[in-house]
């Protein structure tokens, strides 16, 4: 055990070094310029300037145009590629996949490859089949789920793209060439503006739902306030964009989750610095498992940490060999290093402590008890195994997924309103006001023991046993002369 921990530790440091030793300035393209400037590009521009002027105008304002990278450089394809088609004498493809972008942007490509973002299709499959297919239908999975998670793009036998899977710019899109992802998920085509990708709205296209209420959370945080107030000082177009050095007015999503700061290098593996998994019914600190082939996956600390060289299933279902494991503490260290560009160590640590405390509160007081009760109801056969065919399942889902996510994200990004009213208050309302009554309805007399075991045994719920503690919070002091009747 000790040697394994030592090993994990060693590799954890290696992981940290990986962050700290890389350059702080955005990676420059190393490929020789002779690799672009396709001779067919002018013809594309001449016609598309007339046929779809918007696309051309956007491209003309891009760094690509400035560097002489034209339509053909990105859209050219080989005849044998499954989605290749003939267009005005050229063989091209509509979809420019990460592999195509990676020809020049190889570092960004390899960082994104194997990241949790790039596995968004596999990660969304369970939700997709229930929330998409069961609760709604295929039309929703196409226009909803898949637009963020990514579709599995289907090329029909006549070379056209199946409209059930395209257009799509989901971050984990599985492309006809087998690559995963869509650079245009964040980098809007065809301008591919640095400034646009660095703004919170680049993330908010998908991170705005109850599952991931990041946009609203950021907007109502001190960071969001500073960003809105000083957006003109953000130096968003700068080549080098290191927090504290190139800008200091405010952080954006990019700053903390992937941006350069001090000795911390920028990365296109956006989930790398997140120590907590905030999405589940109960949050866990998570290891980041790195595989030999560059793929990664999250691994909860409650499970045994995998050893280096061990075989382990990757997110895409294939087996992989573990290269190293980054502990949540290491991940937190990197995130905190970003904070330190503007905040003192004690400030950053204090903030992280407040965040951790709220997550633990949610976990122990509401997340774990409701999860245990639900498991018990399923085990006793009081609920059918199918999700969402009983009212309590919606209540339970909203409790951790919607309200719980708001609370935890509020704490993670310093939005008091989300921690409180959109978060923990809504969790409590859902728990005490809807969930427990439903448990009683479903389990009948059996509910008494269940609730006693998982809820009332916790001191945090002691207030329920003090019915005489009146307060004016409801608007006025109740006339507490009547006799309380026990159940």
């Amino acid at each position: 055990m000790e040697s394994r921990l030592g090993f994990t530790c060693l590799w954890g440091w290696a992981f940290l070094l990986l962050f700290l030793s890389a350059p702080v300035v955005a990676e420059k393209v190393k490929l020789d310029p002779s690799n672009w400037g396709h001779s067919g590009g002018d013809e594309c521009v001449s016609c598309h300037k007339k046929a779809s002027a918007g696309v051309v105008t956007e491209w003309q304002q891009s760094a690509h145009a400035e560097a002489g990278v034209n339509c053909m450089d990105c859209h050219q394809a080989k005849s044998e590629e499954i989605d290749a088609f003939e267009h005005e004498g050229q063989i091209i493809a509509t979809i420019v996949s990460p592999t195509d972008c990676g020809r020049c942007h190889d570092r960004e490509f390899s960082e994104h490859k194997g990241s949790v973002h790039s596995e968004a299709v596999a990660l969304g499959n369970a939700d997709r089949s229930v929330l998409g297919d069961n609760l709604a239908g295929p039309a929703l999975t196409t226009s909803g789920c898949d637009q963020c998670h990514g579709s599995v793009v289907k090329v029909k036998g006549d070379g056209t793209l199946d409209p059930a899977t395209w257009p799509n710019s989901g971050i984990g899109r599985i492309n006809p060439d087998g690559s995963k992802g869509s650079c245009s998920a964040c980098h809007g085509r065809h301008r591919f503006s640095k400034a646009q990708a660095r703004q919170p709205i680049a993330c908010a296209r998908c991170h705005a739902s109850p599952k991931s209420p990041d946009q609203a959370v950021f907007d109502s945080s001190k960071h969001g306030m500073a960003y809105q107030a000083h957006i003109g000082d953000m130096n968003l177009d700068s080549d080098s964009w290191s927090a504290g050095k190139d800008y200091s007015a405010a952080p954006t999503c990019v700053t903390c989750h992937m941006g350069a700061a001090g000795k911390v290098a920028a990365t296109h593996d956006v989930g790398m610095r997140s120590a907590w998994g905030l999405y589940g019914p109960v949050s866990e600190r998570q290891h980041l498992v790195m595989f030999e082939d560059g793929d990664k996956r999250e691994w909860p600390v409650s499970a045994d940490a995998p050893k280096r060289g061990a075989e382990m299933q990757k997110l895409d279902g294939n087996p992989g060999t573990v290269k190293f494991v980054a502990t949540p503490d290491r991940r937190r260290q990197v995130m905190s290093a970003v904070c330190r560009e503007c905040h003192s160590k004690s400030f950053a640590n204090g903030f992280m402590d407040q965040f951790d405390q709220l997550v633990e509160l949610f976990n122990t007081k509401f997340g774990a008890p409701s999860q245990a009760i639900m498991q018990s109801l399923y085990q006793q056969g009081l609920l059918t195994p199918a999700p969402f065919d009983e009212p309590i399942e919606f209540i339970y889902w909203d409790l951790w997924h919607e309200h719980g996510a708001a609370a935890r994200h509020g704490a993670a990004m310093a939005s008091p309103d989300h921690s409180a009213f959109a978060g923990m208050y809504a969790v409590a309302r859902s728990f005490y006001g809807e969930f427990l009554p439903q448990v009683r309805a479903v389990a009948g007399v059996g509910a008494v023991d269940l609730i006693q075991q998982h809820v009332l045994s916790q001191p945090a719920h002691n207030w329920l046993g003090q019915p005489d503690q009146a307060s004016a919070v409801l608007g006025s002091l109740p006339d507490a002369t009547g006799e309380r009747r026990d159940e």
Partner: protein
Amino acid sequence: MSKASWLSQYITRHVLFALIIGSCGGILFILFLIEFDQYTGTEAFCTSCHSMSFAAEDYRQSAHFNSVSGVRASCGDCHVSEGIFAATLDHVMGVSDLWKQIFGPDYDDPVITALHLPEAAFAAREWFLRKDSATCRRCHEQEAIHGSRLHTNAIHVEDAKNKSCIECHYNLVHRKVPDQKTFKRDAWNRMIEEEFGLEAGAAERLMGGE
């Protein structure tokens, strides 16, 4: 010898009759060819083979069948050259299609037609290109194409200046088939199998059993 007697020596009554009958016959033959070329270019004639009705289904959905102005191009207007000799030649060459219809694969089966469609499309495109899209140009004047969008005319006058219509405008009327350079037989077969609910490999079996 007078001129008249010289003529009368050769143009006997019998020769005169033969000339008149021959001329009338020739005129009638030309008229017949005109009528023949015209009739054999109509949709009614073409779709008298069941296999051609599949091609007609897509055609009837196209702008060449349903135009706002009511101008309608029928099969022969696009697929048969202008001029009696060229038109007749096209029909003579077309006999090979008739031969295949009778002695070749069962094109009346929609699956068979769909499987063989790409090669037919490639041949048709090659024909259009060889003719420099002459049948398109019977109705369409490249410089006069204005379209409904702002720069359609500029594209046709500037960017498509030395191009033949078919180079850009394929997959205009009939079922979409990729260009020959990017066509993938395997993918096409799987699509047709899926479309007609056939088991995998059925396409190869059907095509092999010609």
